[in-house]
């Protein structure tokens, strides 16, 4: 024990980092990829991009070149700039949906798992919502609203909530019967306090893992919705929108569709790798099974 402590303090911080990478390669690779995408999206204005929505009719449908790294689209807009800026929408939607779905699902799941009276009704509603495919539910909501990024976030969040509720509820149901909860109730702890102090900490590790998966799925669904013309407003560059606009030219110039697609795939892959890695780190028992 003492030896281990001395060892870890004596080693420089860098070796700790390398040890982490060796022990959890998927998290390391996933985080590195994700970090790269985040940095590139945020730093887009300083990475040799031009205004992603400025139209240049004399430069329509250009091939990849030193001037236009990814070529240009049918309005002569620079695709490299559009793809980099497009990452911002994906990341905003992914993070917002993960946060909103997790918080909403957590609140409903905690209450539903702890209060028997609410449980039956809430779970039937959740079952019903899960029977509607996520994309269809989102499409129905968006078709009836004026297109905006916020509406897309709400529409993608809604179908994800039942998954969180089910997870939180299952954790609550197993923990609720344990002796320390009984003890807490016996000394007169209030229900909100039990939920907050005893149930929440136990639900947190699987919830964090679930949140990363939701983030990945939200990025995918936003892109799919935009691709179908039911997502982010067409004037905003997002990967789905860029691919949708490039569709008629696919046989002529596959790179117009494939390059934003590659960015999208790498982003989702990175988030999923982080999720898998977190799952292995936070729940070794589950990791061995999967």
């Amino acid at each position, binding site marked *: 024990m003492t030896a281990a402590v001395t060892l870890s303090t004596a080693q420089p911080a860098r070796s700790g980092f390398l040890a982490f990478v060796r022990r959890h390669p998927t998290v390391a690779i996933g985080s590195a990829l994700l970090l790269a995408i985040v940095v590139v999206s945020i730093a887009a204005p300083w990475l040799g991009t031009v205004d992603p929505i400025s139209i240049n009719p004399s430069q329509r449908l250009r091939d990849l070149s030193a001037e236009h790294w990814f070529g240009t689209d049918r309005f002569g807009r620079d695709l490299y700039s559009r793809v980099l800026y497009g990452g911002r929408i994906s990341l905003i939607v992914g993070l917002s949906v993960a946060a909103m779905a997790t918080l909403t699902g957590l609140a409903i799941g905690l209450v539903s798992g702890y209060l028997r009276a609410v449980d039956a009704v809430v779970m*039937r*509603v959740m*079952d*019903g*919502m*899960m*029977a*509607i*495919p*996520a*994309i*269809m*539910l989102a*499409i*129905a*909501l*968006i*078709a*009836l*609203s*004026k297109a905006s990024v916020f509406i897309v976030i709400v529409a993608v969040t809604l179908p994800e909530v039942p998954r969180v509720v089910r997870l939180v509820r299952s954790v609550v149901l197993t923990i609720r019967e344990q002796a320390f909860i009984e003890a807490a109730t016996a000394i007169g702890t209030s229900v909100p306090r039990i939920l907050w102090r005893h149930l929440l900490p136990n639900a947190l590790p699987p919830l964090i893992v679930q949140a990363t998966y939701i983030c*990945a799925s939200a990025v*995918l*669904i936003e*892109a*799919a919705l935009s*691709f*179908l*013309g*039911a997502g982010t407003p067409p004037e905003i560059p997002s990967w789905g929108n860029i*691919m949708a606009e490039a569709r008629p030219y*696919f*046989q002529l110039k*596959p790179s117009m*569709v*494939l390059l934003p*697609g*590659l960015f*999208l*795939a790498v982003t*989702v*892959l990175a988030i*999923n*790798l982080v999720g*898998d890695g977190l799952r292995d780190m936070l729940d070794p028992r589950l990791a061995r*099974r*999967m």
Partner: protein
Amino acid sequence: MHVFLIRRLLAAVPVVVVVTVFVFALLHLAPGDPAAIIAGDLASPEDVAKIRAKLGLDQPLLIQFVTWIGQLLRGDLGNSIFSAHPVSELIAQRLEPTLSLTLMTLFISVLLAVPLGVIAAWRAGSWIDRGVMAFAVFGFSVPGFVIGYVLIWLFAIELGWLPVQGYTPLAKGLWPWLSNILLPSFTLALAYMALIARITRASMLETLSQDYIRTAHAKGLATENVLMGHALRNAAVPIVTVIGIGVALLIGGVVVTESVFAIPGLGRLTVDAILRRDYPVIQGIILVFSGAYVVVNLVVDMLYTVLDPRIRY
């Protein structure tokens, strides 16, 4: 068995009720006046009023709901705003391509993913196992429409083996039908295969560590028999469950895949309906898809008792 069947059917009722209420409520949950949005920006107030009357939105909420449910019970999904055709007719016309696509996908996925998962579990830790797991993460992450375009580019444009897009009905011959349906089915199958392979591996790993598997090996049974007869049989319940739940994934994928491959199915109908804001059509398709999901999962629950006779409800 009959008791179980009836109980399971009854359990599906609240789900169907929730779906129906939800699909009805969607029209009213959305911010703003749905009639105005459906009519579009250029519509005159008279047009908006006409659409409102057509959708029955000028009636009290309760009356609207009762009317709607009454029509549904008679199999009437309403009429398209755009073409005035009954929604049920529009859906029936588009059923064949979508059914071809989903059934073919189901077939390919189960046929390939289950053996992959079995082999991965059998050779846990080997390069085959790692390969299958890497494929699973990959299949889950790469969006269907990206895969679709890569496949089109490779097999249709570069190699020229299969047609780029479109659909030929089965009535016009097996090969024309198959050649059109193959690429979209593989596109759609990828994520589904990833899901099935992963759960097959996990479930198999658990059964393979059981004592009766060691016994089967010890009494000299061939490995295939142990894997397929003893282990897979006992690992089947979670696999079949995931196949059922995954149908939701499949349905979402259908919409995207059909529009990549220009297949005139329910997915295309959905996309056209979104662009025209043809709300009754969207509602009808959601009901049909959700109904399919509920039925598939009912069948899965029935299969439990066949797969595992120990399960008695």
